[in-house]
């Protein structure tokens, strides 16, 4: 009992220490932030190490830490295709956009993705549509991040109350949601993107270290290690441990496409390519990003396989699960030393906070910088102050969304967010920056095709529908928007473009 009590105290101690660190980082970053350029793109002054690690850790987020192991637990090897898609996805993103984005950002002193896109297409209408799609995706993603943080906080708190015999357990998420949002807003409003990338860096280091340790802990949790897990899974359902998992080959390949090409459209990823000190930094950032992601994926694989095997062997009671998303929490609270669990939970909060911070920054830029710029060339007065107010507004909206949306359907919002960014932005950014004939009309049509198909998919799932073969809705949206973009542009008249943009595209 004492050991149990201590372990919960150790874990909550780590979480409180981490939240305190966030406040300190936020205050430190505020001193470094003197302009909107500092606030949104870190003054374009990030080194290779910080950029590489920040990119991979901002993509891992709560989805990687909580959702990933849950997917392996639920579907066996199916979700490995998300991991398998990542190396080629990052390659496509770096090859296609890294240097052109960085060059145009410097030439035009751009502080957001829509800035670059307007410069490229010479169209305020395209900027407007990109900004709107960013806001759609940001709200959905933020709601998931805030909800994930509140849910994990509540679970840890309830465990602590039970172990200490405090009659203070709570089924409601409201209090934890308010607490999470308050820390998040303070951290983002004060620190901007500088706080985010430095936390991303620490989070990345924590993630990689913890993932390697957890991988070995997972191997020891089941007698006989990974071969025994594979045997257990095989005896129960051979398909679960074969390469396509329980979901099947078409669904896995639809994920492969969505998560590989979709990386190009993720604003929280590609915007970081605009923040490096020089174009050449991309050279080291790509291998660092992929190495970090691959190592962090060990946590995803290890926990998911171990928990599925333990439940199938009746060594772990499934009754304690709220959903498959409980997989990581259950494993950490049961099979790992409290010190390591505390570090991983701190890493989890770091993942959520820094990703949410990145989204709040991008969303705030869309709100106070990009939307007004669609109608006037002058920046709004006191843009930095408005950027901070924008963050507050977005956080409140996302928290309300997180409260109103049924918690068991929140995962869908995350997929919706990724799908919207991928399908609305990947063709515009990826093709647009590489093809002079790409037209504004093609950009606008593909953005709306992406948003509408993802919305239809969300509504379909809301009413319990599904797509045949488990094909991801985001994949359909990305395929249609990409085909539409290329098809319309093929028949468009080439347009005059400013010399500097033309040079950047001919690099």
């Amino acid at each position, binding site marked *: 009992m004492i050991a149990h009590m201590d372990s919960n105290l150790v874990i909550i101690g780590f979480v409180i220490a981490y939240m305190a660190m966030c406040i300190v980082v936020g205050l430190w970053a505020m001193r470094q932030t003197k302009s909107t350029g500092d606030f949104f793109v870190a003054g374009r002054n990030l080194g290779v190490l910080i950029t590489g690690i920040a990119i991979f850790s901002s993509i891992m987020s709560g989805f990687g830490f909580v959702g990933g192991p849950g997917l392996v637990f639920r579907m066996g*090897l199916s979700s490995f295709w998300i991991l398998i898609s990542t190396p080629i996805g990052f390659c496509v993103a770096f090859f*296609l956009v890294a240097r052109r984005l960085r060059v145009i950002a410097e030439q035009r002193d751009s502080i957001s993705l829509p800035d670059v896109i307007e410069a490229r297409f010479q169209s305020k209408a395209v900027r407007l549509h990109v900004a709107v799609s960013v806001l759609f995706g940001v709200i959905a993603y933020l709601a998931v991040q805030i909800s994930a943080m509140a849910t994990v906080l509540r679970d840890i708190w309830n465990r602590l109350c039970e172990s200490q015999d405090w009659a203070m357990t709570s089924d409601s998420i409201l209090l934890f949601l308010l607490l999470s949002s308050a820390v998040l807003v303070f951290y983002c409003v004060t620190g901007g993107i500088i706080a985010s990338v430095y936390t991303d860096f620490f989070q990345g280091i924590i993630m990689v270290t913890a993932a390697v340790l957890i991988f070995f802990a997972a191997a020891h949790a089941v007698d006989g290690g990974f071969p025994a897990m594979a045997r257990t899974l095989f005896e129960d359902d051979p398909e679960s441990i074969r390469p396509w998992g329980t979901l099947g080959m078409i669904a896995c390949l639809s994920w492969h496409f969505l998560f590989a090409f979709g990386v190009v459209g993720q604003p929280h990823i590609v915007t970081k390519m605009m923040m490096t000190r020089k174009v050449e930094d991309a050279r080291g950032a790509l291998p660092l990003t992929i190495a970090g992601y691959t190592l962090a994926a060990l946590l995803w694989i290890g926990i998911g396989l171990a928990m599925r095997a333990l439940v199938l062997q009746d060594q772990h009671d499934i009754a304690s699960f709220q959903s498959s998303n409980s997989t990581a929490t259950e494993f950490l609270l049961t099979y790992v030393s409290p010190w390591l669990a505390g570090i991983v939970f701190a890493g989890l909060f770091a993942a959520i906070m820094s990703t949410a911070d990145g989204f709040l920054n991008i969303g705030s830029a869309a709100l106070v910088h990009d939307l007004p710029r669609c109608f006037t060339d002058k920046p709004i007065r006191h843009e930095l102050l408005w950027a901070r107010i924008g963050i507050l507004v977005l956080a409140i909206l996302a928290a309300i969304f997180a409260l109103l949306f049924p918690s068991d359907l929140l995962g869908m919002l995350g997929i919706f967010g990724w799908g919207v960014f991928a399908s609305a932005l990947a063709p515009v950014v990826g093709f647009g920056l590489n093809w002079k004939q790409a037209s504004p009309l093609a950009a606008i049509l593909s953005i709306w095709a992406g948003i509408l198909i993802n919305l239809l998919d969300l509504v379909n799932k809301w009413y319990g529908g599904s797509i045949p073969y488990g094909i991801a809705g985001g994949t359909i949206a990305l395929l249609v928007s990409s085909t539409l973009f290329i098809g319309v542009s093929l028949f468009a008249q080439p347009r005059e473009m400013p010399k500097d943009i033309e040079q950047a595209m001919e690099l």
Partner: protein
Amino acid sequence: MKFWWILFVLFFSMTAIVGGLILWGEGGNRHGYDHPTKKFISVGGPAGERVGNLPWFAATFGTLQILAFVMLLTLGLKKSARDSKATWNTCLWFFGATCSIYVALLLGVFALYLAEINSTPQAAGFPTSSSFALFVFWPFPLVYILFYSFGFRRLIHSSDTP
């Protein structure tokens, strides 16, 4: 221009495959169902029953993806590399050869999977097809990372680029 027409055909073909499959319908559950005794876990069921003609469509869909991705990678080459006939030809050989191997590896995953539907060969603790996907197919894009990092100044970007 020819490049974008080819890319258009690739994307259009993938859209057609996915659209065709959706319109065709699933005809039974081919993407898993709930475990009979354990909640929150799904099972795939007997492979022989759910595979049918799907590998043909899936392999084509996967191959088109890889072709599209590798084609997109060539857009990352800098202008001087594209303009120099010798460098461009070397790069084309590199991308052509690696793309062929990449596709062959994907088809290898399918072949091993189909071969082991009725048996249980194992490699590195997993079914052979899974081990092949995890330890051979997954790391293959490392060649593009090495290309990017080691060929950066010569082929991707150099500070003297205007």
